[in-house]
């Protein structure tokens, strides 16, 4: 096949998720069918309608950073001014570099790019306690702005705003790894991370960089963030059985669960990877994106077809589809319709795998974390089941893989993601067989 642009490969990943803080533990949980969704422990969630979530446990960012290294020491000192989302991204970026075998300083800074996904990073309410108390009597909506300006504002930490700006993950990571090339933060809701990877591929192909760290982190497990999402995200009410609560494509699904996670990939041109003797995990063959104006799955179908076309593959070449699989009645149906439109519903259609039963909703990090799961499945040659899809919904005319480990026989998979408004993206990946 004639290629007019450089080939792009994945050479490393760093993942911290509700089912494990490294690739080996994550794969173990996937094999054992062990969901990471549990009653929320980070704070007293008893007053929330949905009180379960996919939490990361035992995450101590300090442990990953070495004081003796000047750049890591800067990051260490900066941790207190980073929201948890930023800390997760920073640590995952270090894990990705190390997995890629890219020693500090080994990538030419001007050819080292960053593409991250983010959603709104929440204010932490405890940072505003003094300012709020002095300016409000606690009656709903009552705040005295004159007092806020005079006494509230000066009581807040000077760098407060930098703790939650959406581009701060990329900024801290640029400093940690001396990445001076193209840098962008895509903020397209829950498809942001996937679109960031797509943009990294585009930039590598046009030749403005050789190497990228790309992916996303997102934690919705803060007081303000979870309160907001309780209001607009379709969340499950199955508080009594958290491990069985999120049920993508299952007949009795009733919503998703809030979660947190990160995955950062090292992505580079094949030439660059080979020159530095990197171990190649997979090749990114195609990316497509679109908008579902009518929310009927036509946009998703177009995004998938665009990714397949760029990969120069036919639908029949794909072994499995890693779905967005939110676990909501409405969106799972739309997604299934789109997948069926592209791949058909017959016995030869690819298996569909949804992973939110393990993790819940990961915001901008949904795509990268789920892509990491799919890469692991491809590497191990076994596709885990879609957790909790006990009775596939006949209104979702696709072949959901829902029981046992299924052998992966074809070397290609497709990852799909979308937002509730209609933004959607698809990525086609090939196993690296040398």
């Amino acid at each position, binding site marked *: 096949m004639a290629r007019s642009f450089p080939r792009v490969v994945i050479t490393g990943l760093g993942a911290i998720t509700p089912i494990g803080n490294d690739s080996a533990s994550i794969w173990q949980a996937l094999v054992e069918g062990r969901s990471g969704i549990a009653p929320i422990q980070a704070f007293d969630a008893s007053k929330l309608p949905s009180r379960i979530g996919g939490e990361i446990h035992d995450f101590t960012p300090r442990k990953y950073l070495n004081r003796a290294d000047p750049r890591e020491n800067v990051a260490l000192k900066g941790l207190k001014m980073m929201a948890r989302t930023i800390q997760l991204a920073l640590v995952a970026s270090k894990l990705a570099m190390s997995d890629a075998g890219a020693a500090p300083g080994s990538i030419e800074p001007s050819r080292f790019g960053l593409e991250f996904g983010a959603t*709104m990073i929440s204010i932490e309410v405890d940072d505003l306690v003094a300012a709020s108390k002095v300016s409000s009597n606690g009656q709903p909506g*009552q705040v005295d702005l004159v007092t806020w300006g005079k006494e509230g504002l000066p009581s807040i930490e000077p760098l407060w705003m930098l703790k939650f700006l*959406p581009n701060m993950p990329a900024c801290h990571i640029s400093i940690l790894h001396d990445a001076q090339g*193209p840098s962008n933060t895509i903020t*397209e809701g829950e498809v942001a991370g996937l679109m960031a990877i797509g943009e990294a591929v585009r930039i590598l192909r046009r030749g403005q960089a050789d190497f990228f760290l790309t992916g996303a982190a997102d934690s919705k497990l803060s*007081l*303000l963030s979870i309160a907001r999402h309780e209001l607009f995200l379709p969340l499950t009410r199955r508080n009594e059985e958290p491990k069985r609560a999120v049920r993508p494509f299952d007949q009795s699904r009733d919503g998703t669960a809030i979660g947190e996670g990160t995955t950062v990939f090292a992505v580079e041109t094949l030439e660059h990877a080979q020159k530095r003797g990197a171990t190649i995990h997979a090749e990114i063959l195609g990316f497509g994106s679109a908008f579902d104006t009518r929310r009927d799955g036509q946009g998703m179908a177009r995004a998938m077809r665009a990714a397949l076309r760029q990969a120069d593959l036919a639908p029949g070449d794909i072994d499995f589809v890693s779905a967005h699989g939110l676990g909501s009645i409405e969106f799972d149906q739309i997604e299934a319709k789109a997948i069926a439109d592209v791949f058909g519903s017959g016995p030869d259609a690819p298996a569909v795998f949804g992973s939110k039963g393990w993790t819940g909703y990961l915001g901008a990090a949904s795509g990268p974390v789920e892509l990491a799961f799919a890469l692991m499945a491809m590497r191990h040659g076994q596709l885990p089941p879609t957790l909790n899809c006990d009775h596939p919904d006949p209104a979702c005319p696709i072949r959901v893989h829902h029981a046992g480990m299924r052998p992966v026989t074809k070397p290609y998979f497709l990852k799909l993601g979308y937002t509730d408004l209609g933004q959607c993206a698809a990525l086609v990946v090939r196993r690296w067989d040398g």
Partner: protein
Amino acid sequence: MQKHRRRVVITGKGAITPLGHNVDQLYDAQVHGRSGIAMIRNFDASTFPTKFAAEVKDFRLSDYFPDADRWRHAGPNTRFALVAAKEALADADMPSSLDRSRFGVYLGNGDGSNDFPNLISAIARATQAESRANPSVFFEAALSTFEAGHEYELEMHTTAGRLAQLFDLQGPNYTCQTACAASSQAVGEAVEMIRADDADIMLSGGAHSMIHPFGVTGFNLLTALSTHNDEPVKASRPFDLNRDGFVLGEGAGMVVLEELEHAKRRGAKIYGEMTGYGTTADAYRVTDSHPDGRGAIACIRMALEDSGLSPTDIGYINAHGTSTQVNDRVETLAIKNVFGEQAYKIPVSSNKSMMGHLISAAGVAELIVSIMCLQKHVLPPTINYETPDPECDLDYIPNVAREKRVDHILSNSFGFGGQNISLIVSRFRD
């Protein structure tokens, strides 16, 4: 010019800014040196360190859309974006028979503002007995007072989504947020999407307002804003020795970017060509730009290389020019580094001296002013330029507009955290 690739031209533009509700008003104010800065009316800022800003005046969405109520939950970002997009699409005069799947959106959009009164009172209520918020009390207060629709619309992707829904734009739909560089970056990447054949037309730009209690609080804490409360119209003084910070602005700008052959086939008006794009990171400090302008220099060079132009081709530089001590010094340094002696011959000005800093929307608003310069041959001044700074010694078009026909314009945007974007827009030549 560059090797064979798809060329991208501008066929539409729209803007709502502190200097008016459309592009003509924006440009007219710019070339006449009229400031849009005044005391803040959006909220009571009388005790804030900074009490003034460049607000969009007399704006009602219903003046532009009879059914404006459908966006009742949307914040100012989406409201401004709708109006600027409407102007840009009308200007581009698109036929109804377009392939909508080849028509995308790429915005640099700001995040929305949290519900200040309900959030602050919820925190106060949740901390009456303790120094840290009691989660149960906080949740009860928040869930009973926050408005679901409003909370949803704070998310950054909603603006691009609303535009795509309204105008039936079915192509790629992107949003980025790289602080003050965001809308320039959006335009740059949208150009690349057309070049890469992922789309034929992109509606691109940005929208942002941070003129709200949280925004002014955050920037005041960082001591980034001017506190020239006595004389707001004099507060934004880029490159002047006595500059003391930037002035917050708000608004939206949109351009219609189109593949050249597509534009020609439909007989579109062509306002200019996007010829160069550079994107780099300082990788230095979260709070400061690199003191030698390392990232900015690499960025301008990358844009020049992308355009295939030489430094002598650039006739005007539309500076980032925020009016902070550091930015204006470092930007000047970077321009001198890239252009050498030639730097003294290129007029440089800052549109922010009049319209303030539109944050995520700043870059595209300034690109639109640059596009107007290609049409009208008048370059806007830097107003409030009174006392030269020995470290800023270029030709900043002090105080009075200048007639000059230029063919290639460089527009810089440098964001918090060391995000650098440079765009080059050129007079169209077939």
